[in-house]
């Protein structure tokens, strides 16, 4: 694609996705204001929200179609899962396209491809004829330095708005659009639309002036009454959609962080939607704080990135070097991905010096223009950057050790759990791990894989004993996220993201179905009280079954329709992950656990999911009174269930040769497909696509075996009741209680973090009370004492002097009174004597 077309296509895509992204924000603004002024009983807010996100979905689908048409659907023809090995091209990024792939197979896939991503049409004629000729042209970018990060179609990137500039660091609102972005947009908007429609039904009991919250008790023992909050729910949901889409479209890591925090806030608001319930507000706090702990690591990663890369942007961009004030000189600067991996996906490491050289888009080392010294980053700091950013992912995606917030987040309404905590927000962590993949060194990837592995096992074991229907699904989400992280860690990039998309569909489906069950059972969430609901809630039951089969990864072996195994979407994605981990383990046999644990857990997953299904929908009702009042949900709630069930079943048609996987593989970081040999100093080797393909069938069969085993055991225990699960619980009481206590993580964190904080807080409170208040009270008392002394002084001394003067005058006056005797003769004497004295004085002092 020549540069001008690239530019214009990029701009069109940017505008389409920006519309999809910003519409929910407009919706949020309107709902917040309108909610204040409008009627509490109107559903206008909901319709507005649905309208915004639905339009967003249409825009995303159009964008995907437009992208496809402009790139002539090169992505779909560039599948390499059925390839024979071919040499890697000198321009490494084209390696996969040059392979002589099985054309017939590829075309057969395309012919069955469903319109599941929107309204695109397959251009079969174009493919068949022009594939081989065109994929060089369509997929190549030898002419221009664009999107070297990709193995496939180059990405579109640019800036919407520049926010600030600090030296060489330019922070702006950027976009980075490739097939992953487009697929994520379509997925998020589609699921969000379904969930918004579902929520119209689910939250309809908030459409009242007086909502009675039975879980909050007032002081006089009654239940809490409050006005309904229907519009507020939808305003939060719109804000959340805006934040999530902003995260997906982000073109620099700082923007990701901004929207990361925004989704965190929305999650906090939505989990704590029933604010007055102590459990809900505590859960919201817990979620946000644990996310924050991860974000602390994220910030450290950001700091390292800024220090050594000088930019946050993923893709190359132009900055104004400004050699002199007022003079502008645009210089092309490579983006982060190119700096670390160049254009061939390899790390340029100097093992003795322990540094990684930064490179530019052409593969040359970046040098400082003045001193000609190459830019480097110490290897350990690159590891720190990767781990830091991954720490954010751990928090956001509820991986070990920060996984305890997600089950408590089920305090929010079920649509929230479906949207935020299964399909989108927690997926943001996986999305970032995938997006940021080029910056992760092999050590970081190994850490990611192990954390994913631990998480998936821990969560699956806890899900086995959980009894609240939403909690089982929450632990299942954690476990599946662990799968995705594991996949990314073993360099199964597309596999992990494939699982992300399929998981989003079937998990949100299952959450919505459980919401339907909860509403049908009048807000009862404990499974031991349910049972036999299939007859009364058939649509919910069967759509839930679709979801359960999908997540268990079941397929009908040995039978293929149109060359495809009969399987739902989860089979293909889990298959891809297990295959990649097996290939990884074959190359690095010391890490065999990374294959065995997911395999066993696949069995566990099938077990607990079918346990959930049988417990809820099969057999005899355990609470007859509850059962009598159960009713199927209205169409506004079951409609989205059916739509999502369709996608959960069909979105991964074709498996690794299918539309979805091909679209995702198109955005694979460059060089990944060829594998990565271990460094001389030790480390891990990453499997190439061919390694994976070689073990694919083995892995698939083993995974399927595990899943079947789990399903059969679940049926025996909960379906046919051959063995009573209660007896097993009694036998393994210690294990059971350990699992029910969620591996004691909550208690551990309570002792490690919460108690010490309380202790320190009490110290500070005591300090405040004793020292600071003491000073205040002391100074107040001192002021009072001074004033008392002052008063005494005033009264005694000063008043004394005044009184003295007065008394003296009086005394003098009294004594002078005595002179006036009234005796005339005395007066005459005085006169005479006076005259005499006068004369004497005159003659004495004035002698003539």
């Amino acid at each position, binding site marked *: 694609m020549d540069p001008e077309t690239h530019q214009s296509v990029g701009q069109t895509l940017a505008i389409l996705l920006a519309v999809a992204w910003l519409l929910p924000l407009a919706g949020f603004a309107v709902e917040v204001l309108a909610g204040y002024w409008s009627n509490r009983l109107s559903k206008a807010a909901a319709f507005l929200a649905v309208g915004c996100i639905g339009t967003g979905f249409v825009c995303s689908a159009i964008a995907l179609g437009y992208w496809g048409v402009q790139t002539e659907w090169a992505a779909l023809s560039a599948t390499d899962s059925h390839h024979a090995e071919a040499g890697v091209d000198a321009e490494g990024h084209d390696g996969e396209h040059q392979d002589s792939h099985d054309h017939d197979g590829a075309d057969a896939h395309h012919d069955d491809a469903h319109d599941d991503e929107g309204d695109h049409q397959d251009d079969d004629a174009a493919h068949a004829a022009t594939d081989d000729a065109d994929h060089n042209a369509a997929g190549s970018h030898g002419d221009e330095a664009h999107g070297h990060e990709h193995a496939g179609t180059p990405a579109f990137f640019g800036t919407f708005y520049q926010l600030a500039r600090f030296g060489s660091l330019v922070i702006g609102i950027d976009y980075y659009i490739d097939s992953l972005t487009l697929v994520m947009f379509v997925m998020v908007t589609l699921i969000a639309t379904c969930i918004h429609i579902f929520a119209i039904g689910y939250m309809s009991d908030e459409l009242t002036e007086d909502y009675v919250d039975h879980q909050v008790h007032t002081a006089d023992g009654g239940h809490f009454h409050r006005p309904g909050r229907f519009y507020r729910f939808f305003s939060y949901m719109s804000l959340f959609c805006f934040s999530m889409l902003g995260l997906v479209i982000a073109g620099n890591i700082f923007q990701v962080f901004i929207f990361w925090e925004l989704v965190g806030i929305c999650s906090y608001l939505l989990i704590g939607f029933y604010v007055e319930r102590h459990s809900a507000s505590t859960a919201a706090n817990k979620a946000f704080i644990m996310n924050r702990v991860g974000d602390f690591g994220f910030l450290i990663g950001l700091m390292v990135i800024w220090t050594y890369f000088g930019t946050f942007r993923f893709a190359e961009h132009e900055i104004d070097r400004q050699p002199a004030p007022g003079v502008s000189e645009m210089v092309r600067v490579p983006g982060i991905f190119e700096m670390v991996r160049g254009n061939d996906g390899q790390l340029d490491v100097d093992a003795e010096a322990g540094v990684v050289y930064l490179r530019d888009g052409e593969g040359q080392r970046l040098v400082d223009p003045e001193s000609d010294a190459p830019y480097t980053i110490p290897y350990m700091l690159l590891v720190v950057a990767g781990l830091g950013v991954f720490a954010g992912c751990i928090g956001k995606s509820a991986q070990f050790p920060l996984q305890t917030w997600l089950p408590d987040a089920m305090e929010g309404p079920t649509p929230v759990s479906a949207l935020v905590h299964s399909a989108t927000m927690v997926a943001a962590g996986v999305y970032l791990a995938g997006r940021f993949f080029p910056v992760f060194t092999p050590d970081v990837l190994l850490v990611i894989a192990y954390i994913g592995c631990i998480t998936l096992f821990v969560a699956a074991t806890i899900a086995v004993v959980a009894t609240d229907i939403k909690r089982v699904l929450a632990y299942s989400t954690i476990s599946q996220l662990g799968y995705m992280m594991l996949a990314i860690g073993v360099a199964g990039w597309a596999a992990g993201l494939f699982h992300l998309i399929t998981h989003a569909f079937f998990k949100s489906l299952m959450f919505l179905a459980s919401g339907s069950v909860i509403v049908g059972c009048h807000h009862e969430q404990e499974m031991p009280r349910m049972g036999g609901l299939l007859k009364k809630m058939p649509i919910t039951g069967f759509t839930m079954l679709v979801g359960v089969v999908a997540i268990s990864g079941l397929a009908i072996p040995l039978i293929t329709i149109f060359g495809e195994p009969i399987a739902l979407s989860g089979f293909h994605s889990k298959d891809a992950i297990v295959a990649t981990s097996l290939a990884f383990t074959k190359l690095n046999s010391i890490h065999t656990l990374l294959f065995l644990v997911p395999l066993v857990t696949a069995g566990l997953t099938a077990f607990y999911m079918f346990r959930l299904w049988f417990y809820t929908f099969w057999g005899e009702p355990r609470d007859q009174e509850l059962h009598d009042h159960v009713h199927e949900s209205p169409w506004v709630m079951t409609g989205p269930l059916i739509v999502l069930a369709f996608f959960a079943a069909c979105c991964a048609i074709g498996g690794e040769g299918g539309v979805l996987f091909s679209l995702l593989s198109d955005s694979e970081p460059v060089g990944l497909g060829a594998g990565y040999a271990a460094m001389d100093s030790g480390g891990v080797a990453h499997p190439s696509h061919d390694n994976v393909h070689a073990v694919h069938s083995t892995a698939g069969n083993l995974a399927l075996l595990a899943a079947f085993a789990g399903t059969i055991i679940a049926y025996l225990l909960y379906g046919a009741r051959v063995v009573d699960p209660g007896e097993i619980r009694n036998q393994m009481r210690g294990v059971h209680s350990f699992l029910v206590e969620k591996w004691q993580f909550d208690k551990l964190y309570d002792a490690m973090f919460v108690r010490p904080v309380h202790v320190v807080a009490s110290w500070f409170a005591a300090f405040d009370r004793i020292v600071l208040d003491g000073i205040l009270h002391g100074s107040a008392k001192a002021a009072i004492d001074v004033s008392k002394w002052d008063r005494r002084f005033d009264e005694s001394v000063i008043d004394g002097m005044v009184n003295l003067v007065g008394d003296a005058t009086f005394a003098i006056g009294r004594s002078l*009174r005595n002179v006036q005797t*009234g005796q*005339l003769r005395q007066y005459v004497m005085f006169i005479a004597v006076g005259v005499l004295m006068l004369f004497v004085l005159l003659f004495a002092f004035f002698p003539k």
Partner: protein
Amino acid sequence: MVGAVLFVAGIVCMATKRNGIGVLMGVELVLNGANVNFVAFSRYTSLALDGQIISLFVIVLAAAEAAVALAIALNFYNNHMTIDVDRAEELHG
């Protein structure tokens, strides 16, 4: 010399007499003593004629003043039935 003697006698009289008339006598003595002094001055200093004139004034004034004084004494006797000056204490404080 004569004048001085007369003057002093008059003062003493004024100061010590309990009788009101006695006090007035003293006043006369004082005035006459002063008169004599004036005449002496007219003879032995440069006053000359002025001394004579002054003594004439003094005589006239003495006469007028004696009249007034007697009037006061009479009034005093009307109010107090006595002319003892020690009894005129109403102005004491």
